């Protein structure tokens, strides 16, 4: 079956499924959500899934991912999902993360549905909303209606449309003006495909008021085959500060197509951290719209790939107002036959004078068969701009390897030490200490399971 046919059949099957889902749910669905799902579905029917060679999807095997999707049951709301063995294993892994201890604020979704027993929401600061949205979606609520889908991703982006067509549950964070959340807020997604492949479409809506502050950590873990299609929308009010983490550690049999969309008001500050190590096929997409004067953005990324993994990082930064700053620093480590990509575009619109934009991508190839495509791009339509971009791809420095070995490091240890050093530049920038430790431990674990002899 060629890719085009696979894609067309995939869309057909998925659209039928979405229609059936919408029909089934119609009784329990307020009008705004019916409309939203309908619009998304129409957009998806119009656009289809991206064909091979599509400019924005060059580095991602869409057809392969859609094939995985076609093989999935509509998993939304599987009862008792968290009691199943695969999910339990994945949850144990979450518990072992350490950073997601009970006393913290955390929402745990198992196969797309909130598991209240596993979630803890004690002692949230006054006025802060942090909870699941299924009830709000059923009843309609002024907390979600005005914002959900406001960035219109479902009109532009086939996988955001897909997510929206199946929208049924997710997480909401609403931080009122001037309120500071001091402890991180966790959203954990567990996808268990061990009893049959599942598709999930998690949704997160983050709304920060003026001068509000929050740290949000979205974690993805799982077992078995799955198609995980999360969408996060973030709205930062004037001078709001959001520190956002995505830890993608999905199952080795899963496809992960994630989209993060953010809108910044004047003075808004956003720091995103991406850590992508899991899933067979991973697409980590982030679009940030700097639509207020003086907004600031820092995006860090660390992506690891081995064996046959594909990890495609797609970034768009939209400078639309003056005095905004943005910097991206993405680093990738690829072993085995893994393929990586950094496709990042910074657009500086005519209205965005005194922009300061920097883009950097570095990649480390650990095996002769690993590859990476690095495409940092600047599109500048204003003269009053300071912008740089750069990309470098290399291998471990043989002089450094010898230096370490001449001091007694074994070859594997020496390679691990240098690889960890490469990664630590990104890990060190994580402000939440348990998270930083977790990440360093994850990189180490990845490395120890990743001697050249084990990479197939």
């Amino acid at each position, binding site marked *: 079956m060629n890719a085009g046919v696979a894609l067309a059949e995939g869309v057909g099957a998925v659209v039928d499924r979405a229609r059936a889902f919408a029909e089934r749910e119609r009784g329990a669905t307020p009008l705004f959500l019916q409309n939203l799902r309908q619009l998304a579905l129409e957009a998806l029917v119009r656009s289809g899934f991206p064909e091979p060679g599509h400019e924005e999807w060059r580095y991602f095997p869409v057809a392969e991912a859609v094939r995985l999707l076609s093989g999935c049951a509509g998993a939304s709301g599987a009862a008792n999902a968290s009691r199943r063995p695969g999910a339990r294993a994945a949850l144990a892994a979450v518990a072992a993360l350490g950073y997601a201890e009970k006393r913290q604020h955390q929402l745990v979704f198992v196969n797309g549905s909130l598991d209240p027993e596993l979630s803890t929401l004690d002692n949230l600061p006054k006025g802060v909303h942090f909870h699941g949205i299924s009830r709000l979606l059923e009843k309609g609520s002024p907390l979600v209606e005005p914002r959900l889908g406001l960035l219109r991703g479902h009109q532009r982006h086939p996988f955001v449309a897909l997510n929206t067509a199946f929208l049924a549950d997710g997480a909401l964070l609403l931080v009122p003006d001037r309120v500071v959340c001091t402890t991180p807020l966790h959203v954990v997604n567990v996808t268990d495909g061990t009893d049959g492949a599942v598709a999930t479409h998690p949704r997160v809506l983050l709304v920060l008021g003026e001068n509000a502050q929050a740290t949000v950590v979205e974690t993805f873990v799982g077992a078995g085959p799955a198609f995980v299609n999360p969408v996060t929308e973030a709205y930062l009010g004037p001078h709001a500060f959001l520190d956002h983490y995505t830890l993608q550690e999905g199952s080795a049999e899963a496809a992960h197509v994630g989209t993060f969309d953010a809108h910044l008001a004047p003075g808004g500050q956003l720091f995103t951290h991406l850590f992508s190590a899991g899933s067979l096929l991973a697409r980590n997409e982030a679009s940030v719209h700097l639509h207020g004067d003086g907004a600031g953005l820092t995006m860090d990324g660390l992506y690891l790939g081995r064996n046959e993994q594909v990890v495609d990082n797609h970034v768009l930064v939209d400078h639309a107002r003056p005095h905004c700053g943005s910097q991206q620093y993405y680093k990738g480590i690829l072993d085995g036959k893994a393929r990586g990509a950094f496709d990042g575009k910074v657009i500086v619109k005519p209205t965005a004078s005194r922009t300061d934009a920097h883009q950097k991508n570095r990649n480390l190839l650990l095996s002769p068969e690993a590859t990476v495509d690095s495409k940092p791009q600047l599109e500048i339509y204003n003269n009053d701009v300071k912008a740089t971009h750069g990309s470098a791809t290399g291998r471990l*420095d*043989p*002089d*450094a390897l*010898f*230096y*370490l*070995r*001449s*001091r*007694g*490091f*074994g*070859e594997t*240890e*020496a390679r691990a*030490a*240098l690889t*960890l*050093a*490469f990664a*630590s*530049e990104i890990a060190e920038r994580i402000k939440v200490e348990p998270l930083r430790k977790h990440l360093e431990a994850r990189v180490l674990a990845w490395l120890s399971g990743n001697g050249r002899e084990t990479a197939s």
Partner: protein
Amino acid sequence: MSETMLQIEDLHARIQEDGTEILKGISLTIRAGEVHAIMGPNGSGKSTLAHVLSGREGYEVTAGTAFYKGRDLLAMPPEERAREGVFLSFQYPVEIPGVSNTYFLRMALNATRKHRGLPEIDAIDFLALVEEKARLVDLDDALLNRSVNEGFSGGEKKRNEIFQMAVLDPQLAILDETDSGLDIDALRIVAGGINALRSPDRAMLVITHYQRLLNHIVPDFVHVLAGGRIVRSGDRQLAHLLEERGYSWLDEEAALPVGRVS
């Protein structure tokens, strides 16, 4: 007679990439407690010898042998040589961003200890050891927590090499131009550190261009390496002679390879 630490016989080595022969038959015997100096013009093969002895890739030994305490040195991977007690102080120490100096040293020390059947060093003992040895070469504490050699001045890098040597406590130390890049005071301090490590059961091979270093570290033997061969060996007076007259007079003597002088 004391134990033979290093016995090199008729060692030939070439650059793997282009096949250029650099070492053209080197023979040298070093016993425990001895300090041997190697001098010689630029490009004569001094660093190549040091690299071949420590197992750097990129060279091919085409003939000859090198035994370390009776074991075939050339058959061991570099880390095993290090763990067995061979230490190379690099002419150009390598910068390793992101790996802290102390972490690096603790890993290195523990690798050697493990090899010798010793447990990992206790954190407090390690700290004490590091402090003591840093003092020996007057190494700035701040350098300990920085990445290995990253942004170190030339002199700081050389101090760091000798500091590492002091911590790792090798039995055969090969010091490749440890004096170059050091100012006069630093030279005195570093040489003092090296001298402190002289002992009846340790041997040193000191590569240098300058008699100056040998005033501090008085060698038992001096060898001249030229064109990939040891063209002359002698006692410390040879170093003075070289300082005065350069290397050219050796050519005029139609020098033949000279073996061990003892």
